[in-house]
Each structure stands twice: as structure tokens, then as C-alpha cells.
């Protein structure tokens, strides 16, 4: 029940509301106090005061006050509305919805509450609730077209296209005159609902209409009309492969007759000399000599023009060995022919035309994973640099070659040279920073980045990168920090990425209303659908996997310290020793983090200035030390894990990580679920083999102690290895089968150790990895990591031997350590 106020106070109350809306919080607060002086238990005023206090940043106080308001006046819709708004502010949308619903029950006609509720329902994907809200809003104001569109959209989002269409038809019938041509909102809504033919004339989105028309005509088998429609589309945009496909299909040319098909492309190439697709796309379907001829023409044209991205435009053809070889020989021929023609005319600096372009193509060719010969790639780069020494492109490719060798140090150096050749280009600057990060030089990389960031905020360049949502940088910096042993800092970065995804999800909120007003309904629906699976993006998965691995590491090292892991030799002084090592490592890491931060601070030219922006909240954990000392690392890991399992279940790394988290949490059913999913994706994956054996071993130990139901499910669903299997033999068979693959060998050795084999024998077995003579050095790096983890005396010998096998790999041939003092 609204508590009555005197008329003077009533007008004061209206002023409070006005003040709040106009953000005059101080004034509003004063007026509220005035009312409360006489009516200390006036619920609505208390609620408005809470709202104002909340806007001033005092959330806790605001909540306490809002509760007080509710106690004073349980029946006030204002009190409930405010309560909902506070929850909304806290992003506790479920509670907010509940509160709004209460408020609405008390004041069914309130458009404001109804609206606030509706948009939250859309945000929370409560589409049935949203339909109800929109229906109520329509009923109260049916003359507003927007309300009709909105209800149709609500049905559309809920998947009920028929109902959506009905709403719109009803609306149109209710109009005396047809909607005007300029009426954007209407035309968009219609196209969203595929009213194409009837609305084509009125729709201002000409491209959408043309595309849909072509598609429908083709589907209906109206070939001539479809041909015409696709030609109209190609006349607009001849770089969209789908249109060519549509055209040739409608012409009935998608069968074997490639020459007729090619003729269509030729026609467009001729009429539109600047068109790339018409010349390049036939290379996809031509074969044999036809391919060779067309490829020669294309390659010659591009290299003569000096298009450095020629290789990028052709490399997809390399999955076909014939095309790969043909392009290689054509490029060689091109260079030879040019060399024999050209007299003494030397190429212009910085230009990649003719011979340099050919050499550049070949360098990229030999650097590409399907045609890799790094020594040859270097040879062509060096020949190119002999001709045009100052070109960014050759330097860039050279750096990439060194990266492929595993020489991160040289790669970073040379990419930085490339950067110096074109200081105005952020692209090359970005690449230089990225290569520095790959070489674990995080401070240097930030300095490089700072050449293009805005550095005028108190947080400096890092602040700008976070603010601008530079996910690639945060992720790479996090991964480099992991390699540098700075787990806190790494977690800091991975959490920053996590938070960006939260922001991205929150970002759509305003558009639930904005888009209705703008009338761009199709784009809005696309956005909603995309946001529904936002965290499917590889950007999320990569950072989340980094965070999970870090948290697992934290969890495991705690176990080592606490001796929970049933140390095999169990000696107390060994435990003490472990503790000491860990403590020292932790100290060193903290010191390094402090130094890194100080260094970063020094690089910030604005740091000395007093912080200007009062809005920037001070980060009370810049090094992530708090994150790293979280005493529930597995809970945190699960937080990062769930979206991967939900949105990217076919990502094997996600399932592998899921197993690791759940087995540590002794959630055996969930672990098994991940394991089975991983087995379905790639049964031969070495890590999945490890996990299978580990699971069998652990289950055999634990099965008896599990609840009967759980045990039963595990028995029926874990079929990869039988309970009675001799695991040692199983592992030996696995090794035999995969003895040529280094990664599998490493996995098998890990399992031998787990099954109790003598460490010495395992160490020896790891050396087998070195004799496999593969290009891929990463399994050897993992083997080296294992030896270090086992604190094996052989680790250093292994590193040296690996360094001889892969002389260019920085990981095995670290630069000499800088002098210890600083």
C-alpha cells in the first residue's frame, strides 16, 4: 500500500525521482532526507534513496536500505522495482526478474516495470516470458508499430516463425494504408520473416532481396530467371564465390564440363580487369594441363604486378599434390625466365615486382607446412634480400622461417628488424611484439606495443590493451608468463580475457531496445543467435585452456607440498626438501613478477604524472598473486572449463582438460564423460591413451568405495579398457604400435612410470625420442620437462643431446644467462 504523504512531501518525492533521472544525486538525496525526517518509515522514499546511493557506488549500503524499504512497505511496487534494479545493476538477472515480476503484480499497468522486465527476459533468453511481456505491452499500446514488431521478434526468437508472421499480418491488415516505402522498420521485419516476394519493392536492403530472390528462383528450378539474378549479383560484387557457384549451377554447368564453367569466369575476368576472383577461382576446379596454363597466367600476372600476397591467395591449392608441384615449378620457371630476359635493370627498393616477387613466392612456398624445406626457404629469402635489402616482406618471412625452426630468439630479432623498416605500420609492429612474446620477452613486447597504444591513462599501454579488448595480446602474454613461471601474472591475463567475454555478453543488453527502435531486426536476430554461443569462439577456448592448465599446476604443486600424493619413497626429509624447493621457486617467481612490474612501470612515460582519471579503479592485485594463491584452484578451473564443454564439445583439448579437472575433483562420472568424448574425437591421441589407463587404474582402486549407482554407470560406460586388463601389457602394446611417433613414446613412458616402473628405465626410454629423427621437436621438449619434473640427473644431458639434434631450437639452446647481479 502506498503510504500517504502530505502534498508538500508528495511534490518533494516527485523531485527525488526527477533528480535521480537527471543524475542530480546530491540534490535528490537531500530531498529524500527531508521526507524521511518526518516519515522515517516511508518505503518509497527509502527505496529511491537506495537507488541514488547505489548510483554513487555504495552498493552494499543500497541493498541494506532497499531491504529496509521493503520491510516498511511490502506492498509498494516502487520498492520492488528498485530492488530489481539493484539486482540488475549487480548483474544478478534472475533475482532482478523475480523482483520486477513482484512489482508488476502490484502495479500491472506500469509500462516502465514492464519494459525493464521484458529486456531482462530477452537478455536471459526467457523467450516465453518475453512473449508474455511483449503481448502485454502491445495490448496497452497497440497503435505503436514497434510493439507489433517486437512481439513478432519475440516469437521469432522463441523459434515460432508461424506465430511471428501471424502477428505481422494481423498488423498490416489493421492498417488502413500500406506502410510507406521509406519505412525501414517494417521492411526489415518483413524480410526477416521471409515475406520476400510481396515486399521486395519496398525493401531498402537491396542486396538481401537480390540474394534471397536468386536463391528462391534456383530452388524453384526457374533456371533462366536464376541465371539473371546471379548475374545481377555478380555485377555488384564479383569477389563473392557463392555467386559464381549459384550462376554456374543455374546454368547447369556444375557437372564435368570444366571448360564451359571456366568460360563463365573468363567472361567476368574480361569485363572486369580488376577482378581477382574470376581469374583465381577456376584454379580450384581445373586439373592437368588446363590447371597448369591457368596457373601460369595467374602467377605471371600477379608477380609482374608485384602483389606480395600472391602466395596467400594460392596456398589453399597445396592440398592437391599436383597443384603444389605445378605451382612450385611455375614459380621457378618464372624466375629463370625473368633472369634471362632482364639485363642490368635492378628492381626498385621496397618493390616486389618480377624477380623479387618470384623469389618471395618461393621463399613462402618452402616455408609452408605442406611444402616445407626451411633451408631452401632461407636460401630464397637471402637471394631476395640480396636484390631488395630493405623489404619488410622478406624480413617478415625470414623471421617466420626461424620460428618454424623453433628458434624463437632469432625469429624475434628479425621480426624486429622488419618492424624497423616500416615504423608507421602497426601490422608489422604487432608481429614484432608477438614474436617477442613467443620468445618470452614480455617486457620488451609491451614496450613494442606501446608505440601504437594510447599511453595517457594511468594504467599505461597495458590498460589501453585491456580497455580495447586486445585478446590476442592478453593471451600471448599469459602464455609467455606461464613459460616464464609467472603463474599469477598469467592468470591475471587469462582472467582479463574471461572478463572481456562477460562484457561482450553484457554488451547486447542495450540492443534489445535499441534495435527495435532502429528497426534493423535481421541484424539483431543474427546478433542474438551469435551471442547465444559467444564462448564457442577459439579466443575464449585458448585463454581458458591456459587458465585451466595453470590452476591444475597450482593444485598439483599443493599436493606435492602436502604430500597428499602418496609420495612413493615417503621419506620425511624428502618432503621437506620438496617444500623448500617449492618455497624457493615461489619466492623467485614473486621477485621476478615484482621486477617485471617495476620495469613495466618505468617504461610508462606517464606513470610519474598523478593519476588523472578518478574513474580508473586501482588494481589491487596487478601481479595476480591473489589469483595464484586461490585455495580452490579446481573450482576456478571448472569455471573456465564449463563454457568449453558446453560450446566446444568437439574440441579435444577441452575434453582432455575436463578429464584432468574432474579426476582431481574425484567426479568420476564427469571425468569419464570427457574421456569418452575425447576417445570419440581421436582414439589414437597419446594423451587420451594416458588418461584411459589412469582412469582404469584409479577406478579399480576406488570402485568399491563409490556409491553403487555411480559404480554401475562407470562399469557400463567405461569400455575402453576392461577391468581385468594388464595395464603394463596394454601400455607396451600401445608403444609398439606407435613407436615411430615421439608424442606417443613420451606418453607411454609417462604411463610406465605411473605403473611403478623404475625411474632410471623410464629416463632411458625418454632418450629414444631423440633417435626418432623427426622435425617436430615439441615432444622432446615435453620429455625434457618430464625429466625436470622428476628431478632427474639426466635432464641436462637430455637437453644437450636435444640441442644437437635440433641446433636451432631456442628451448634446447638457451642464450647464456645474463650476469646474475642487476
Amino acid at each position: 500500500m502506498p503510504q500517504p504523504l502530505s502534498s508538500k512531501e508528495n511534490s518533494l518525492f516527485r523531485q527525488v525521482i526527477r533528480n535521480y533521472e537527471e543524475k542530480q544525486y546530491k540534490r535528490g538525496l537531500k530531498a529524500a532526507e527531508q521526507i524521511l525526517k518526518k516519515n522515517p518509515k516511508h518505503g518509497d522514499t527509502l527505496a529511491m534513496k537506495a537507488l541514488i546511493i547505489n548510483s554513487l557506488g555504495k552498493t552494499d549500503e543500497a541493498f541494506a536500505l532497499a531491504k529496509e524499504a521493503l520491510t516498511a512497505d511490502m506492498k509498494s511496487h516502487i520498492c520492488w522495482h528498485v530492488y530489481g534494479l539493484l539486482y540488475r545493476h549487480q548483474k544478478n538477472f534472475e533475482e532482478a526478474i523475480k523482483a520486477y515480476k513482484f512489482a508488476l503484480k502490484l502495479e500491472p499497468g506500469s509500462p516502465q516495470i514492464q519494459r525493464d522486465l521484458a529486456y531482462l527476459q530477452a537478455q536471459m533468453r526467457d523467450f516465453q516470458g518475453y512473449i508474455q511481456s511483449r503481448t502485454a505491452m502491445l495490448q496497452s499500446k497497440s497503435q505503436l508499430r514497434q510493439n507489433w514488431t517486437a512481439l513478432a521478434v519475440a516469437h521469432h526468437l522463441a523459434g515460432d516463425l508461424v506465430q511471428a508472421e501471424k502477428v505481422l499480418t494481423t498488423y498490416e491488415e489493421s492498417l488502413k494504408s500500406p506502410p510507406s516505402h521509406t519505412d525501414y522498420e517494417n521492411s526489415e521485419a518483413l524480410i526477416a520473416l521471409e515475406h520476400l516476394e510481396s515486399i521486395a519493392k519496398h525493401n531498402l536492403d537491396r542486396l538481401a532481396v537480390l540474394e534471397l530472390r536468386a536463391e528462391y528462383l534456383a530452388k524453384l528450378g526457374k533456371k533462366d530467371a536464376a541465371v539473371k539474378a546471379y548475374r545481377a549479383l555478380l555485377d555488384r560484387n564479383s569477389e563473392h564465390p557463392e555467386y559464381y557457384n549459384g550462376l554456374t549451377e543455374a546454368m547447369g554447368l556444375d557437372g564435368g564440363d570444366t571448360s564451359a564453367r571456366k568460360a563463365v569466369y573468363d567472361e567476368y575476368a574480361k569485363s572486369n580487369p580488376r577482378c581477382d576472383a574470376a581469374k583465381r577461382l577456376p584454379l580450384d576446379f581445373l586439373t592437368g594441363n588446363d590447371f597448369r596454363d591457368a596457373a601460369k597466367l595467374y602467377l605471371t600476372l600477379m608477380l609482374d604486378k608485384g602483389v606480395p600476397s600472391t602466395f596467400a591467395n594460392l596456398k589453399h591449392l597445396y592440398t592437391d599434390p599436383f597443384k603444389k608441384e605445378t605451382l612450385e615449378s611455375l614459380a621457378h620457371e618464372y624466375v629463370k625466365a625473368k633472369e634471362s630476359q632482364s639485363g642490368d635493370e635492378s628492381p626498385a627498393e621496397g618493390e616486389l615486382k618480377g624477380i623479387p616477387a618470384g623469389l618471395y613466392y618461393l621463399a613462402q612456398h618452402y616455408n609452408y607446412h605442406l611444402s616445407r624445406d626451411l633451408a631452401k626457404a632461407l636460401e630464397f629469402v637471402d637471394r631476395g634480400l640480396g636484390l631488395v635489402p630493405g623489404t619488410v616482406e622478406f624480413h617478415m618471412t625470414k623471421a617466420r622461417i626461424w620460428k618454424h625452426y623453433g628458434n624463437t630468439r632469432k625469429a624475434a630479432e628479425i621480426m624486429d628488424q622488419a618492424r624497423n623498416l616500416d615504423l608507421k605500420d602497426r601490422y608489422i609492429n604487432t608481429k614484432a611484439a608477438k614474436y617477442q612474446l613467443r620468445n618470452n620477452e614480455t617486457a620488451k613486447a609491451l614496450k613494442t606495443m606501446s608505440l601504437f597504444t594510447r599511453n595517457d591513462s594511468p594504467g599505461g599501454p597495458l590498460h589501453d590493451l585491456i580497455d580495447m579488448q586486445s585478446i590476442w595480446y592478453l593471451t600471448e602474454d599469459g602464455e609467455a608468463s606461464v613459460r616464464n613461471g609467472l603463474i599469477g601474472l598469467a592468470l591475471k591475463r587469462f582472467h582479463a580475457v574471461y572478463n572481456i567475454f562477460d562484457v561482450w555478453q553484457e554488451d547486447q543488453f542495450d540492443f534489445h531496445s535499441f534495435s527495435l527502435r532502429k528497426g534493423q531486426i535481421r541484424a539483431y536476430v543474427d546478433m542474438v543467435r551469435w551471442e547465444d554461443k559467444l564462448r564457442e569462439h577459439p579466443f575464449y577456448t585458448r585463454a581458458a585452456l591456459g587458465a585451466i592448465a595453470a590452476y591444475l599446476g597450482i593444485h598439483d604443486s599443493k599436493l606435492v607440498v602436502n604430500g597428499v600424493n602418496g609420495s612413493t619413497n615417503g621419506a620425511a626429509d624428502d618432503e621437506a626438501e620438496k617444500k623448500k624447493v617449492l618455497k624457493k621457486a615461489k619466492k623467485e617467481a614473486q621477485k621476478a613478477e615484482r621486477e617485471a612490474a617495476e620495469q613495466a612501470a618505468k617504461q610508462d612515460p606517464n606513470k610519474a604524472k598523478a593519476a588523472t582519471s578518478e574513474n580508473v579503479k586501482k588494481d589491487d592485485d596487478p601481479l595476480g598473486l591473489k589469483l595464484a594463491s586461490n585455495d580452490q584452484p579446481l573450482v576456478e578451473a571448472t569455471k573456465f572449463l564449463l563454457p568449453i564443454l558446453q560450446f566446444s564439445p568437439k574440441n579435444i583439448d577441452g575434453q582432455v582438460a575436463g578429464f584432468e579437472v574432474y579426476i582431481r575433483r574425484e567426479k568420476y562420472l564427469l571425468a569419464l564423460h570427457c574421456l569418452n568424448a575425447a576417445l570419440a574425437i581421436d582414439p589414437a591421441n597419446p594423451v587420451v591413451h594416458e588418461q584411459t589407463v589412469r582412469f582404469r587404474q584409479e577406478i579399480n582402486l576406488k570402485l568399491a568405495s563409490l556409491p553403487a549407482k555411480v559404480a554401475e554407470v562407470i562399469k557400463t560406460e567405461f569400455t575402453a579398457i576392461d577391468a581385468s586388463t594388464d595395464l603394463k601389457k596394454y601400455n607396451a602394446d600401445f608403444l609398439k604400435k606407435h613407436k615411430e611417433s615421439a608424442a606417443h613414446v613420451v606418453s607411454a613412458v609417462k604411463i610406465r612410470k605411473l605403473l611403478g616402473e623404475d625411474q632410471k628405465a623410464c629416463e632411458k626410454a625418454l632418450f629414444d625420442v631423440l633417435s626418432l629423427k623427426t622435425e617436430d621437436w615439441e615432444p622432446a621438449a615435453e620429455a625434457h620437462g618430464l625429466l625436470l619434473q622428476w628431478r632427474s640427473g639426466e635432464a641436462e644431458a637430455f637437453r644437450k643431446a636435444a640441442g644437437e639434434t635440433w641446433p636451432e631450437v631456442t628451448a634446447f639452446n638457451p642464450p647464456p644467462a645474463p650476469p646474475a647481479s642487476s
Partner: protein
Amino acid sequence: MDIRRLEPRDIPLIQHANLENLPENYFMKYYLYHALSWPQLSYVAVDVSRPKKTPYDYPKIVGYVLAKMEEEPTDGVQHGHITSLSVMRTHRRLGIAEKLMRQSQLAMVETFGAQYVSLHVRVSNKAAIHLYTKTLGFDQDKTESSYYADGEDAYSMRLDLSTIREQIRDAADAEGVDEGEPVGEAGSKTLPVREKDLKKVKVGRGLGVQALVEKDESKHS
């Protein structure tokens, strides 16, 4: 390469390309604001030939143009504006930027009845200046001093879109469509009333969509 319209799901990689290539950056919401206000105007170039690394790979964006209509044109004339344009260095000189721009310009006329399109470019940016003036025919309007955050001046450029307008009209005539007017011609030389009303609506939270406009502009000045 595939040149097509921007879709909302492209945005993370468009933002990524922008961060790789240019010092003027924007948060995701600003891209959404473009994509949801003028979805017809922004285009991307996609490297369709990249082998997928996971089943969840998104189309690899190697170039984009992010464009908008000026919401409150000071001269009262409907016109478009290029917010951002860039192409990855590995894919430059293929004509991508030119084609992206042409698609956007066409849609500005067709869908929003734009009379001209404007943009800013750093006075030192030779590649872009060549593209705008020589390839696309922009006129240099004026120089705005210290337009960019680092103090560099900008050329303010514009391109009259009447040629496109005529082409559309001719095409419609040729088709013998009974529309009389090219589509989009009716699309408001003057702003429809509703658009104006829009300006007054508050968007309800800390950083409303409208606030983004100001945020962007303050970035330069």
C-alpha cells in the same frame, strides 16, 4: 578471398584485424553499434581457403570496412562515413580495400540515400591516400590539425555519390521496373522523424549505445 557483408559473429576477428593494423581501436560494443544500426554498410574480406584447426574456427577476416551514416549531419545532408578500414599486410595490394569501399558506397546510396561519403586519413598514410584519391576519386576537403591522438593531422576527404545514384537509376530503367524511383531514393534525403526521436532516448546503462558515439569522437579530439 570472399568479399561479403559483415555478420555479427565476425566482430571478434574484425576487432582483431583492427588492433593488428591501426592505432584507432574500439571496443566490441562500438562494432555492434555499427552492425546493428547500418548492417548493410560494413563489409569484410574473408580468407576462405584457410584449413580449419578446430571445428569451431570462425571465418578468418583479412580485411574490413566499418561504415556508418552520419546521425546528425551538420550540413543537413544525408551522408555516410568510413569509421575504419584496414587489410592485413599479408593480403595487401590485392585490391581488397578498393572492393570493400565500393560495396559500402553502393549500399550507402541504395539503403540510406546517402549523397556523399566522408572519411579521415592521416596525412602521412600514402597507401590510403592513393586508394582514396586516385583509385576511388575522393576529394581532399580540408586538413584537420592534430586530429589523431598522437598529434598527427588528418585530411578530411569526401566522395560525391551521385554517379552511383545515376547508375542505380539507369539500372532500374533498364530493368523496366515500375518502381520509377530507384530503391533507396525514397530512403530519405531528410531524416525520417523517428530517427531524430531516437537521439533523445537514453539507453539506460553506464555506457549506452549513444554514449559510444561520443566516446569515439572524443577519441580523436
